[in-house]
């Protein structure tokens, strides 16, 4: 984790999308959203489907550009960075966990995690060691050489968690990480994610439908009617 990391600050974030293909009318999704995510804290965003939760997460992570407003990470508005700058930020400071447990299909679990470290510039041996250690930590020590089609959905999501953590990111963005899993696996992943985040004092921004999961985080925000309010 970057020592200088002091949280993420969202100020007056507004985002709209074209309402029609012609794009003349726009549908406002987020309206002047302010949010402060402190270092080593965990924040859950809940809300109905289509309320704009994922959009908010993607703007915070620099994957989407807001119509107006700023996202400040370590004192820098991430949306003013170049493609190169944002790529470096994603590699070194951010970890991503999506609903679908995407892996590079031609690589083993170990390689999937290792690649994230290599992209961040870690030496090969160090990347391999860190990847193996994290995969063992998420309970996949005996599945290092398995490819995505040899792993179950829950196991794949555990690989993704390991991959998101391998570079010791400042902040982890998790978008419905248990959304595609059965109850048992969802509970397992939920537990694992929260435990590891706590162990590593990582910062977590979670988007979920699951209110029980959300309540286990430090703070919960509800996104409704384009506005963000604290609590459920």
């Amino acid at each position, binding site marked *: 984790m970057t020592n200088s990391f002091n949280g993420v600050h969202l100020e007056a974030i507004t985002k709209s999308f074209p309402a029609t293909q012609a794009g003349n009318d726009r549908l406002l999704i987020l309206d002047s959203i302010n949010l402060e995510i402190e270092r080593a804290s965990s924040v859950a965003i809940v809300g109905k*489907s289509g309320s704009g939760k994922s959009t908010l997460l*993607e703007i915070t992570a620099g994957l989407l550009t807001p119509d107006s407003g700023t996202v400040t990470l370590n004192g820098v508005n991430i949306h003013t960075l170049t493609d190169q700058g944002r790529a470096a930020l994603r590699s070194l400071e951010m970890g991503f966990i999506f609903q679908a447990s*995407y892996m*590079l299909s031609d690589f083993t679990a170990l390689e999937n995690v290792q690649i994230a470290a290599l*992209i961040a510039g870690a030496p090969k041996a160090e990347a391999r060691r860190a990847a193996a250690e994290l995969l063992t930590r998420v309970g996949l020590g005996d599945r290092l050489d398995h490819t995505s*089609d040899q792993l179950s959905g829950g196991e794949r999501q555990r690989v993704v968690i390991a991959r998101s953590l391998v570079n010791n990111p400042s902040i982890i963005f998790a978008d419905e990480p248990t959304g595609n899993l059965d109850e048992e696996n969802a509970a397992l992943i939920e537990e694992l994610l929260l435990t590891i985040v706590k162990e590593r004092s990582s910062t977590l921004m979670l988007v979920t439908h699951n209110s029980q999961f959300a309540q286990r985080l430090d703070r919960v925000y509800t996104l409704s009617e384009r506005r963000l309010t604290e609590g459920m």
Partner: protein
Amino acid sequence: MIGHIAWRYAFSKTNKNRGVSLRIAAGLAIAILAILVTLSIMQALQGAQFDLIRRYESYDLSTRKEYSLKEARVLAQELATRPTVKRAFVYEDVNVLLQRSRNESIPFRIRAIDLEGNTDITTISGDLHSHDGIALSFMNRYYGDEVTLTFLRSGKQVTQVPKQQTFRVTGIFATHWGEFDQSTILATPEFVSTLIGSEHVKVGVILNDEKALSSFDNEIFITYKEANQALYQAMELEQKMMGLLLFLLVLVIILHLHTSSKRLVHAKQREIALLRTLGFEERHIIILFVTVGFIVAFIGSIGGLLLTFLFFLIFPIIAPPALMSLGLTLTLRSGEVLLLLALILALSSLGSYRGIKKVVHVDITEILGHDKLL
């Protein structure tokens, strides 16, 4: 690391695209084999043909101007003393029509030449140096027969002052070159001079080593290649056209690579988005997929070279005896091979680049977030 990922994308066993990559690599290998083998056989055949022409047309160099017989003999003797000269001799070609029957005449040339020391022309019977007769090859007339020749002026289809004369065949010769045997009559320069009433001959020179060509004054001597430029150019053009035609094969395969690159990028959209979240820049994605194309082309090129060397090894075993009797030596011109490979690799990379350029701009959120974007 990009190379490592590219290799997996091209040839990983779990990759559905692997079959396409292998087929493209195999196609390139076969195309390279076809190009290199065809060109080397053409070059060898043309080389053999040139060698025959040079040997039997009898010179590497010839004087540009004609001399009297006496002057030419002196010059030939002088040239023969040079260490780089194998043989120097006087010669002259006179175009004639040989009357085969009452209604049939066929074009021949009388080659007036000093045959001393010429080991390429073999005497079958009689005397090739007779001062009162001519020598024909074993393919045309038998020894002792009479032939009627109509003398033509050089460059004309018909004589201005037709002159017809009958000669006795006093010698029969043979060479290793059928075309020479079919169309040449041999006679001594003195005998030909008396026939045409002129003593203008040239001096031909055969060198020990072709490299010595440059040591001869270009104003006095003309090389065989210069004298027969049209023939050489035609043969070179033929070779280039064949190379170009075969290169179309490569272009078709590169088009296939271009299409498959597009397909691969489409198939890997999610992984591209994933790599972007891991810190890959757009240019890294482009480099990655161009590298995939490059690797496939490189493997194909190496395969093509290996197949070509294998073909060269087995060529003496599988080649028809008629070809081998020409003494063909297959060689690869390293410059041409390198140019071909560089062209293939560059075009493959360009084909991949063009294939992915428009589709590589993935919207990460669109791909990873699908329908829950809103």
